[in-house]
């Protein structure tokens, strides 16, 4: 079976249009990030978090009422996967299990006929949260840098830069989508947790793959077709590798869909983020990474002619 016959699409000819599409996506992403803001999870904020399972489905506002009554009005309350599981989080911290106990007794008072059990309880000190936030930024920066150096070393320096610009685009665009979808559905928790961080970091390592496949073919074609212009060669290379970039991403998207459906609440946010990122990654390997290499080379050649 073949999804793609031999294609002759003029990818690079339309790159100016796609630059603006990418720019617009980035802009929307940034607007989302700055105006709606991402929800930070317990890992990054610190505080006390309880996951409780009720026997009967409960109304969120009833739970909120109980939390207000016991004196935690600033807490965040949401369903976790299904209407019986409720995630309660408060930024309050105290030595010992005082807060968790107060929440427990408050809930028992509010729902005398609906028993619940505590599935999970996390208490994170403020120091850990600050440390994780810092580590997350270091980690993203370190991964981007390593990849830039590696790709720059394997190809040419500009390829490394272009690859990382594409990755940056993927991360921001994905983050924008994540922020947009956050809180829309009770079945999808997209607050920034360590798991979501893991999704972004892995995404960086994975989404460069498509770019590498295209660059690899460009390098090969440059050797074979010495007389051709880079414009033609990149177009040719993208067309030749189109089916594999789509299919390698496709197999990963397949398992991600499986993870979203069956992987449980913890993995759903991870899989969703990775899926969005994979789509952006495939797109950006053509319209961001390759296009930047082309434009840089064209500009340098013009300068060389002028000199």
């Amino acid at each position: 079976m073949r999804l793609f016959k031999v294609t002759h699409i003029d990818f690079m000819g339309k790159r100016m249009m796609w630059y603006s599409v990418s720019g617009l996506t980035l802009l929307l992403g940034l607007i989302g990030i700055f105006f709606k803001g991402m929800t930070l999870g317990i890992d990054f904020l610190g505080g006390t978090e309880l996951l409780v399972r009720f026997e009967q489905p409960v109304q969120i506002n009833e739970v909120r009422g109980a939390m207000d009554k016991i004196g935690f009005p600033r807490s965040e309350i949401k369903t976790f996967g299904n209407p019986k599981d409720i995630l309660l989080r408060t930024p309050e911290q105290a030595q010992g299990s005082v807060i968790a106990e107060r929440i427990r007794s408050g809930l028992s008072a509010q729902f005398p006929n609906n028993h619940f059990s505590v599935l999970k309880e996390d208490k994170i000190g403020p120091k850990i949260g600050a440390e994780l936030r810092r580590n997350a930024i270091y980690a993203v920066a370190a991964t981007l840098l390593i990849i830039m150096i590696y790709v720059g070393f394997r190809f040419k320096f500009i390829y490394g830069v272009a690859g990382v610009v594409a990755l940056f685009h993927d991360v921001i665009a994905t983050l924008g989508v994540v922020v947009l979808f956050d809180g829309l559905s009770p079945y999808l928790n997209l607050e920034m947790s360590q798991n979501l961080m893991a999704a972004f970091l892995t995404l960086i390592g994975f989404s460069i793959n498509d770019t590498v496949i295209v660059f690899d073919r460009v390098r090969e074609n440059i050797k074979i077709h010495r007389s051709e212009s880079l414009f033609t060669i990149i177009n040719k290379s993208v067309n030749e590798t189109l089916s594999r970039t789509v299919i390698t991403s496709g197999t990963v998207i397949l398992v991600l869909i499986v993870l979203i459906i069956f992987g449980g609440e913890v993995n759903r946010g991870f899989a969703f983020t990775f899926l969005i990122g994979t789509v952006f990654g495939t797109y950006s390997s053509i319209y961001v990474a390759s296009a930047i290499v082309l434009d840089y080379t064209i500009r340098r050649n013009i300068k060389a002619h002028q000199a």
Partner: protein
Amino acid sequence: MKQYRGKLILISAAIALALYFLYPTYQSYKINKHLDTLSGADSTGYIQTNEKDIREARAKRIKVGLDLQGGMRVVLEVNVLKMLQELAKNKDDQFSAIVAEIEKEAQLSDENVTVIFSRKFEEKQIRLSRYYGSLRETNDEIVKKLRDESDKAVDRAMEIIRNRVDQYGVSEPSIQKQGGRRVIVELPGVSKEDEVRQLLQGTALLEFKLMKDPDIIYKTMEAIDKYLLSQGFSDSTASPSASKDTTKATDALTTLTQSDTTKSILAGQKTPEQFAKEHPFFALVRPDQRGLGEGYASENDRARIDRILKRPDVQKLLPSDMEFYWGAKPSGMSEGVKFYQLYGLKKIPELTGGVIVDARATIDPNFNQPIVTMNMNSEGSREWARITGANVNKRMAIVLDNAVFSAPKINGKISGGRSQIEGMENIEEARLLEIVLKAGALPAPVDIIEQRSVGPSLGEDSIQAGINSFTYALIVTVLFMLVYYRTGGAVATVGLFFNVLFIFAVLAAFGGTLTLPGIAGIVLTIGMAVDANVLIFERIREEMTTGKTLRATIDAGYSKAFSAIIDSNLTTFFSGVVLFQFGTGPVQGFALTLMMGVTANLFTAITITRVVFNMMTERGTATINFG
């Protein structure tokens, strides 16, 4: 055949090795399944007869994270400032004011607390010797000492915690040091939060307790033995390892009773079963053969012995000033079962660890033996001289949080406060004793900075989610490959199965922990694993149009796809490395499986599928369907 014989051998070796590492996991699974079918006495009996197998399989099987099996994870940090405060002497208002300032600054800064500490004191031009050390010492000298102490505090905290967790009886606890000041404690299956808190944060209590006369200890044990027999204490579930050892125990009894005036229990020719019936207590605890007064018991019997000793009627049989204490570490192994010593000690301690000023493990230059030297303050020294003088040739047990670490004999009166403890097997043992001796005197205050607990029901849900997503991901991926690449896809499927096998094997071999995100990592690598094959097959399809022979087509496909495969796998591996470095707990589990998946992927894609294709062409297959 010849060209790929080397590869075949390599592949077979890798598979054999993988199966070897995975066998304990399979065995452990089988045992658990078998145990589920048994109930009550049957299952305890089964556990006891297969004790060793079960333990070994458990030790080597793939470990399951707390998020899957439930339990508690606690991160503790040594509170250096609190420690410095507790170490200071002649504390005054000025000192408290400076400490309050340091506390404020330490919260905002990443600087080492001892650095801030010394800077603040220097700013105020106060000599540290006012509060620490002796007057002659300079600030730098004292700061160096304090920093040394704060570095060692983590080890001390860790040893105190390990000791308590061991006594508490958690199965497969994990206690690790993280960085310079943190200890991560993972307690599977534990949910009682307050007990854990007490366990981890209480102050350590070090005591010196005199050991009772061996004769009295033996007679007490004998009295318990007789009493239990008279009570008709049935020992139907006595562990076989203990009964086997009763042969040795009876020997011990023989030597003891010969030197002893008590008659009776000469049990020379009795079978272990008979012995157990007639001596219910000695069947569990066998007295030391040299008549030193300790009893030995297998780790499997500890809980039962504790239950017996706690009974109020049994307690009445003990001399009013005596109590039994366990050794902190096993004293030996026999047939894979650890043996612990049981000591009969005086209830009231002679001295507590607060008097210890310093302890140091070194090698005795004269005899080339590991020793521990211990110094006491003047008050302690006076007491110590009196105690040791009055109890020469008796044994003094060093007890930390109710567990006996050592029970050396007092060779003579020790005046001047400087004692020397000998008889350690090696320097590690001496170092442990050094830490223990310091634990009583030097504080190692810890703060709980992170605590996560997962209930068992959530764990079960997560395991189910993990299994489901793994299975369906495998099915979906295999179906796609078969439909899209036909025969090629079938070969890729073979590679995929080996890939999964290798991931689990490497996980077992390196003692990695499987977490829910870790399962996500494996599922993800299933999707990525076939990518290498996709690259190769697409290339082969391209090469097929150039009219090469089948063999040449496949060779070209592999060699030309190679660089792209290496590059793409390496970049993913890099992000795994970074993630492992910066992540914690479950996320590290994800990073681990991701890195393993990528590595296994390279191996299977380049060697295994290649060999399969080579074998097919060798056999004279004219065409292979790549879809």
